[in-house]
């Protein structure tokens, strides 16, 4: 098997704010192979976005990052700002959540793409222009020549997101990170954009890290799914395996909470009681224990490690859901 594109080992990210420390990411390990699609699922505060930013090198200097992030064998953690600027956009690129706000309103769309192109590639202005138009065409924006000269507010939300994808792919990065890229879009556009992303992935051989809170979306589009909770990875498996063979009670609860059309009407939707933990204190036991319906004494005492209990399926739970309990 080829060398992994991205290797994250024991990544920890801490933020200091006004005397208190927030442990956003508490030691995670994962790898991404070239061309693979990995989804990171979690609720707000689970650390999924912070991890993505760490991989991009976008965290502010106030963030304390420890551990290792190796991109094509090169260590990202501890790099200087200059090197990080070279890394961003060239090796890894990001697509953000809000297409309305992610583009500069006073700058032409084409200029925003050529800016990305010329940052890393030694192209002249006409060449960059050509490349930008080509990118617009690649993300399936009609009349790309015309759109080049337009401003973001003249485009619809879906088109703006395509432009952002075009910007991200401008320098053909090996890794594309989609941070809730479709959350702000309507369902139809969501499907279009996801399909576009997958097609582009195939075409360019880009690996994709899909960050979302939407488990159903991950199921449809990702090869592997990783579930994060309170800064730790709690389960990781191939998409089909995860859904057919759930281990972690948290993941199971997430699955149960997906609205389904085959349920009886007026049935209460199962929700997860309680709220996500406060990340300024690190509790000794499993972070999900306070909310877990299957929690036992040992869950509160010691945090379970992420282990590959079955082939290709990691989970971190003392009392995983058995095959009998799987929905």
């Amino acid at each position, binding site marked *: 098997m080829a060398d992994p594109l991205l290797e994250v080992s024991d990544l920890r990210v801490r933020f*200091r*704010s*006004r*005397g208190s420390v927030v442990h956003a990411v508490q030691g995670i390990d994962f790898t991404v192979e070239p061309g693979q699609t990995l989804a990171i699922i979690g609720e*707000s505060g689970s650390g999924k*976005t*912070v991890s993505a*930013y760490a991989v991009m090198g*976008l*965290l*502010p*200097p*106030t*963030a*304390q990052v420890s551990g290792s992030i190796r991109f094509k064998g090169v260590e990202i953690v501890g790099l200087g700002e200059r090197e990080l600027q070279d890394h961003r956009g060239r090796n890894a690129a990001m697509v*953000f*959540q*809000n297409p309305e*706000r992610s583009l500069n309103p006073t700058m032409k769309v084409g200029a925003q793409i050529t800016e990305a192109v010329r940052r890393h590639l030694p192209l002249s202005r006409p060449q960059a222009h050509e490349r930008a138009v080509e990118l617009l065409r690649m993300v399936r924006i009609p009349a790309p020549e015309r759109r080049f000269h337009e401003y973001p507010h003249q485009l619809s939300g879906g088109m703006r997101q395509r432009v952002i994808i075009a910007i991200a792919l401008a320098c053909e990065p090996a890794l594309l990170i989609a*941070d*809730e890229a479709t*959350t702000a879009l309507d369902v139809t556009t969501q499907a279009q954009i996801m399909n576009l992303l997958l097609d582009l992935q195939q075409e360019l051989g880009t690996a994709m890290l899909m960050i979302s809170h939407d488990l159903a979306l991950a199921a449809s589009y990702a090869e592997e799914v990783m579930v994060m909770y309170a800064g730790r990875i709690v389960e990781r498996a191939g998409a089909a395996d995860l859904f057919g063979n759930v281990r972690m009670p948290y993941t199971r609860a997430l699955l149960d909470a997906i609205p389904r059309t085959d349920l009886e009407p007026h049935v209460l939707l199962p929700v997860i009681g309680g709220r996500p933990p406060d990340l300024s204190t690190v509790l000794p036991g499993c972070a999900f224990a306070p909310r877990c319906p299957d929690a036992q004494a040992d869950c509160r005492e010691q945090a379970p490690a992420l282990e590959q209990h079955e082939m290709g399926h990691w989970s971190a739970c003392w009392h995983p859901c058995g095959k009998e309990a799987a929905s």
Partner: protein
Amino acid sequence: MAAPVASLALGVPDADPAATQRRSRTRGLLRTLEITVPGAILLVLLFFCFIWPLVYPVPSPTYGSVLDASLPLWSPGHIFGTTNVGYDNMARILYGGRTTFEVAAAVQVIGLVVGGLLGVVAGYAGGIVEAVLMRVLDIFIAFPSLVLILAIVDGLGQSELHVIWALSAFSIPAVARVARAGTLRLRDQPFVVAARLSSVKAWRIISGHIVPNLMPQLFTFSLLGTGIVIILESGLDFLGYGIPDPAPSWGGMIAYGQTVMSVALSPLVVPSLFLFGTVVCLNLVGDGLRNRWGVR
């Protein structure tokens, strides 16, 4: 996720975590210091201008013997020296300060009350009332206020009261503008809309909902505006259009200081320092409060 997204990537740059913690604690302390120290200085100044002369025999600012004329700084009995006709400068600073504060307070109070009322009414009523009021205010704002002020004072004659009227013509439109903008914003807030829909009387909505929410903004605006009013007033006194001689005023003292600039600097520097110091303290307190209360 939008705001956290942005703030995640761009924080305050800082290398040393331990120092950050120390610094954040000191920063909290500093922020209060930013308000309390200038505030205390202002209070001390107010005390000396208003209360001190009542308990201590401060020489009269407009009476003096020519024999004591033009004494320099630190002369015995006259800490700040004397003017060319023997008036004690320290007394002139104190009494001049009194005038400054009186005028500033009066002007800002008038501005707050009248301007605030106009602005809130304009903003709340909308329609013709607002349009007319706004056009009138526009006229005042387009008007070089100094012209109006000078004209009024020149025409009515110099006196503290006339200066107050004249400066109010400047303060009222400014407050009205801010009040109107704030009212417009508040008017469409859910809690106000709810009150309106429940047929609560307009004046009750205004007094109970709008005014209390507007107060921090108006107050800090007035506080910051006080510095401007003081500066304007000193300008008037300097030009000879403000407080009439021989009554003391800082601007007037600065004007005198200009005439003797080539010979002695203290008659110029002392009132200038007081003027500067007062405005700086006012601005610091106003700024500090604005940050504290999170006002725009």
